[in-house]
């Protein structure tokens, strides 16, 4: 990779921690731990199984669960699918209503759409202006037929944090299954599943310095939650998810989560300091808006709308910086971010948004450099923007009759 590129897209994926890569490497070659964990007849299998169970313990420890409650999957997308479709189909005799939110990840929204085609009724809740789903709105929409609530812990575009403790209390009291997509949470916020009333929780390896292609689903034992499996073929993972376990991936995720448990505090302190510095540096740019609220978000994600500039052009101008945008132009659909729209942000501000996300390997030097570059290119792009001219001339853009195409 070009060494002058700065990576500010940790919310999209993280590099594998070198300590994780080393552990993974031990599980590949003939003289390593390459066996099939399901082989019961020889040492190769036993050793692989041992490594898988150790990793399961590391994952369970980070979220204070019992290791028997952790099911390996191919990633958070599969975990979300298994949780939502699996629970809905298993409990369909109890009811057919599911509550989720408009700002969930597509890995939650698309399975919900599929369930709608199967006859389930889904309520998509609006977040508040900062991207938070309130317990009140869940209470307002719950019905006798509600069997499942699926709400993310931390929103991937904004970093907004939902109160899953409060929501869990309510769903438990009302005998509703509660699924939480926690792909963005591990290593960023402490999670204690021994205390939380959460029934199902999705995890990802690659958002926490582990490898891609591996994830896990927490399936509560007390109370016992049951699921209809999506993948059949051998009954691995107590029938929840068949398929030969990828030892190297699992060991990688286990090691990554073990490190996260030890280093979360240190990482978070550092990242919070860098995020403060970044905001301090860029906040003297005129007409910028933080999407989300400092009061209720993780510092790892800073999502800013730069008014009168289109996000993709900003990404292009920030050519040595890897960030992502809510702009339509970066998506195949040409629709601006559905998350920002759900907050009630005007489309033009959604088009103008950039998500900067920081992580374990971000340095102060990088933060200062990116802030400097951002200031410079925002100025340059506004010089090119007819909207900036109009804003400076005092034209009310709301009242202009635009010629759309």
């Amino acid at each position, binding site marked *: 990779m070009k060494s002058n590129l700065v990576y500010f897209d940790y919310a999209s994926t993280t590099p594998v921690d070198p300590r994780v890569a080393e552990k993974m490497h031990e599980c590949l070659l003939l003289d390593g731990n390459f066996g099939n964990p399901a082989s019961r007849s020889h040492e190769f299998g036993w050793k692989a199984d041992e490594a898988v169970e150790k990793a399961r313990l590391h994952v369970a420890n980070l979220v204070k669960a019992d290791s028997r409650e952790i099911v390996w999957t191919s990633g958070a997308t599969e975990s979300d699918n298994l949780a939502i479709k699996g629970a809905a189909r298993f409990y369909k005799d109890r009811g057919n209503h599911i509550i989720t939110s408009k700002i969930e990840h597509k890995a939650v929204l698309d399975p919900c759409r599929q369930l709608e085609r199967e006859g389930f009724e889904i309520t998509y809740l609006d977040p508040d202006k900062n991207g938070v789903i309130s317990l009140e709105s869940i209470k307002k929409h719950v019905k006798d037929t509600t069997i499942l609530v699926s709400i993310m812990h931390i929103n991937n575009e904004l970093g907004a944090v939902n109160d899953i403790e409060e929501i869990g209390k309510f769903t438990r009291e009302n005998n509703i299954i509660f699924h939480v997509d926690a792909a963005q949470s591990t290593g960023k916020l402490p999670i204690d599943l021994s205390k939380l009333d959460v029934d199902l929780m999705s995890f990802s390896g690659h958002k926490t310095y582990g490898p891609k292609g591996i994830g896990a689903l927490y399936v509560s034992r007390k109370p016992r939650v049951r699921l209809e499996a999506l993948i059949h073929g051998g009954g691995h993972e107590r029938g929840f998810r068949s398929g030969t376990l990828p030892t190297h991936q699992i060991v990688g995720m286990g090691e990554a989560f073990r490190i996260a448990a030890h280093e979360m505090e240190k990482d978070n302190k550092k990242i919070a300091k860098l995020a403060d510095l970044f905001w301090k540096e860029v906040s003297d740019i005129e007409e910028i808006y933080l999407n989300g609220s400092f009061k209720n978000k993780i510092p790892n994600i800073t999502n800013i709308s730069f008014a*009168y*500039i*289109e996000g*993709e*052009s900003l990404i*292009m*101008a920030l050519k040595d910086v890897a960030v992502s945008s809510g*702009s*339509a*132009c970066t998506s*195949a659909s*040409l629709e*601006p971010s559905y998350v920002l729209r759900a907050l009630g942000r*005007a*489309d*033009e501000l959604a*088009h103008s948004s950039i998500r900067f996300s920081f992580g374990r390997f971000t340095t102060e030097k990088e933060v200062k450099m990116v802030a400097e570059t951002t200031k410079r*290119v925002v100025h*340059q*792009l506004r*010089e*090119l*923007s*007819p*909207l*900036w*001219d109009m804003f400076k001339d005092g034209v009310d*853009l709301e009242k202009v009759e*635009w*010629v*759309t*195409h």
Partner: protein
Amino acid sequence: MYSRKVIQKFEETLNNPQAHNVGRMDANAKNVGTGMVGAPACGDVMRLQIEVNDKDVITDCKFKTYGCGSAIASSQQMIEMLIGKTLEEAKNIKDREIAELLELPSIKIHCSVLAEDSIKKAIADYESKKA
């Protein structure tokens, strides 16, 4: 994702706007036509201004564009094609020519369409002033 040409045009314009016809003219002047197309909610707005002499030749252009890199590069490409052309010649510039020159992928064709629309609108504005 972007062709080399789009990146080049975008960067030239960004780094040296004056030399690349970024700016504005007096929209009320008799010899100036202004065309603004697109909408902020759609993610692109292009404002083209042409200066026309008494022989109906476009002698100068200015533009400003809010939009993605391809929209900005399309504006730049359009300007290069416009200067020195008569109004009749300019009316015949097609979005497809701009798209081909910049090797725009199909998802970015709307950028070149916007450029063609802005030419038409600027010429119409100029002609309405003369009439």
